[in-house]
């Protein structure tokens, strides 16, 4: 081999090269008379990238972390890539959902034009997210972040001949770009204090520094990532943009793009702002609870099925943010008196949060793809018209029910376990009144959410179908296939939660332990 690509760059290279080759494949496919060539090519590229990420993950577990940087621009100055267990875990979740969506889009998008651009953008979207997780300095992170965001903006407005995607996409673009600029503005203060953008050297230099400027920077970074993660006062773009996008892209945005924001919050908070010195856990918990409560109340008012699922995504971001808040709060309050207890509770909470990232990515992706099937058959997102459609589309309906039950947290399914772990972490220190109150609100919200998930399920599955829904047929095979596989994943992980929980636990440790030591 004359050219050897480092193992950490292989998934990125595959995704970006494939994105460039998709239009060529489209051209060749049309010459040969097989339009589907580019679709299959995109699916194969994503499968390959997922395989390479799996290989990277195995390598990371073996060695602890995989690093890459250019020899002549070594850290702390140049570009650096580094995969630890958290990065590789998140990257695999992103790529897995991308693969499902690409398979689903083969039939779902076939009536649209410009599909070469669609697949190229889908590949750059996944590549951007994978790059965000693998980046180890803020410049690299920012480049991949914008790659992801720009692909997202264009994909939301893919059907630009309708008014809804244009309005929603413009709103998304303005808010999300403002968020990423704010994030980078906050990073510039960190740069001023340390003179480097590399994560390792920056966190070493910021250790034990406690300046007011750092709090400003902390706020800017959290708010900036929080726009993409849709934390509650910053969530207003999400319920517009997610329903307006084509259903596969809704699944990507709701399932994983907001998780990239969550990854940013997790990574930047726990790497640079040691919770033993910075007191932000309580505020993060309050924001998480606020996100949960507001989004739950709003979800109840929706008649549009995709809008309802979009609000439910915000609810689930609330759980994940609260988990981070619990971890930070426990470390702030109890680390000095009882380091062992504080560390174990924090790892438990973060592992619960990361497990929920996986569960929500699969579950919400499943729900959006199902609503896409309904949209494909009946051409409406109105819950009143869709009543009873599950009886005419048994596979889709059954998978939708599994997805709804999983997100509602019904015991044998995956969503139950991650919520349970977050709640248990919140209740682990019984003498702390604040944590008990926050966790109680979280439990009430979980019950409330379960009620409306069951209400949706009852309407879709149990009522008599009316005229338009009664005429529906089962969706094509390649659309049902990813849905059924994802529903099966929900059940399998629900029965054997240790499969993913052990990975989430390793990821949480790799995030937390280098910072607090021990």
């Amino acid at each position: 081999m004359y050219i050897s690509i480092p193992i950490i760059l292989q998934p990125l290279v595959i995704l970006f090269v494939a994105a460039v080759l998709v239009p060529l494949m489209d051209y060749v496919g049309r010459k040969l008379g097989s339009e589907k060539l580019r679709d299959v090519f995109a699916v194969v590229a994503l499968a390959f990238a997922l395989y390479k990420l799996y290989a990277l993950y195995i390598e990371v577990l073996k060695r602890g972390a995989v690093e890459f940087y250019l020899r002549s621009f070594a850290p702390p100055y140049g570009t650096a890539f580094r995969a630890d267990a958290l990065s590789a875990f998140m990257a695999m979740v992103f790529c897995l959902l991308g693969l499902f969506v690409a398979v689903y889009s083969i039939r779902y998008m076939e009536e649209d034009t410009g599909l070469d651009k669609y697949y190229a953008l889908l590949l750059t979207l996944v590549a951007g997210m994978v790059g965000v997780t693998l980046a180890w300095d803020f410049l690299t992170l920012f480049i991949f972040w914008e790659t992801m965001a720009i692909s997202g903006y264009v994909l939301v407005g893919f059907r630009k001949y309708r008014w809804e995607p244009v309005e929603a996409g413009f709103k998304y673009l303005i808010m999300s770009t403002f968020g990423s600029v704010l994030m980078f503005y906050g990073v510039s203060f960190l740069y001023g204090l340390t003179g480097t953008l590399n994560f390792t050297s920056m966190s070493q230099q910021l250790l034990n520094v406690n300046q007011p400027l750092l709090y400003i920077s902390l706020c800017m970074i959290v708010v900036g990532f929080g726009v993409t993660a849709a934390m509650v006062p910053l969530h207003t773009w999400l319920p517009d943009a997610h329903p307006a996008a084509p259903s596969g892209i809704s699944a990507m945005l709701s399932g994983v793009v907001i998780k990239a924001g969550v990854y940013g919050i997790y990574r930047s908070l726990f790497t640079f702002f040691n919770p033993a010195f910075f007191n932000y856990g309580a505020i993060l918990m309050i924001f998480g609870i606020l996100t949960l409560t507001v989004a739950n109340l709003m979800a109840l008012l929706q008649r549009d099925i995709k809008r309802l699922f979009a609000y439910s995504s915000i609810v689930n971001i609330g759980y994940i943010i609260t988990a981070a808040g619990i971890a930070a709060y426990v470390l702030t309050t109890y680390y000095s008196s009882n380091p062992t207890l504080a560390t174990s509770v924090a790892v438990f909470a973060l592992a619960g949060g990361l497990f929920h990232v996986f569960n929500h990515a699969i579950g919400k992706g499943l729900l959006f793809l199902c609503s896409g099937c309904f949209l494909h058959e009946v051409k409406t997102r109105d819950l009143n018209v869709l009543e009873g459609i599950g009886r005419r589309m048994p596979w889709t309906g059954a998978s939708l029910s599994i997805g709804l039950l999983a997100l509602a947290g019904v015991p044998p399914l995956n969503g139950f376990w991650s919520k349970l772990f977050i709640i248990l972490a919140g209740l682990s220190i019984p003498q702390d009144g604040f944590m008990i109150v926050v966790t109680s609100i979280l439990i009430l919200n979980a019950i409330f959410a379960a009620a409306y998930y069951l209400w949706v399920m009852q309407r879709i599955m149990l009522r008599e179908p009316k005229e338009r829904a009664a005429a529906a047929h089962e969706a094509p095979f390649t659309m049902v296939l990813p849905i059924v596989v994802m529903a099966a994943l929900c059940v399998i992980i629900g029965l054997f939660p240790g499969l993913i929980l052990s990975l989430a636990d390793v990821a949480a440790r790799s995030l937390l332990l280098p910072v607090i030591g021990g």
Partner: protein
Amino acid sequence: MALSPSWYIVASIVLFAIGTYCLAVKRNMIKIVIGLEIVTSAMHLNFIAMGYAASAVAFNPLTQVIVIVSTCLGACVATVAVMYVINAYRHYGSLDVRKLRRLRW
């Protein structure tokens, strides 16, 4: 005579405030995109000023690289933003964001 870096930081914060004001108040879609560009410029200026402060030389290669890369990304964002503006104009015949009110909470 070179000004101290804190002047540039103050200027950058003022610029950021102007851009945020523009984003919040203006009704014309083009002006909103311009507001976004002003905010981006404020961020660039702050990086340059911080590089100056951190290394005590006005020419800090790392910050120059950051700003150049970020400018390229900003150009892409602006292109997509203007694409949306054009399509919104085709739908509504107006650049007023108040016309874009069909999406409710």
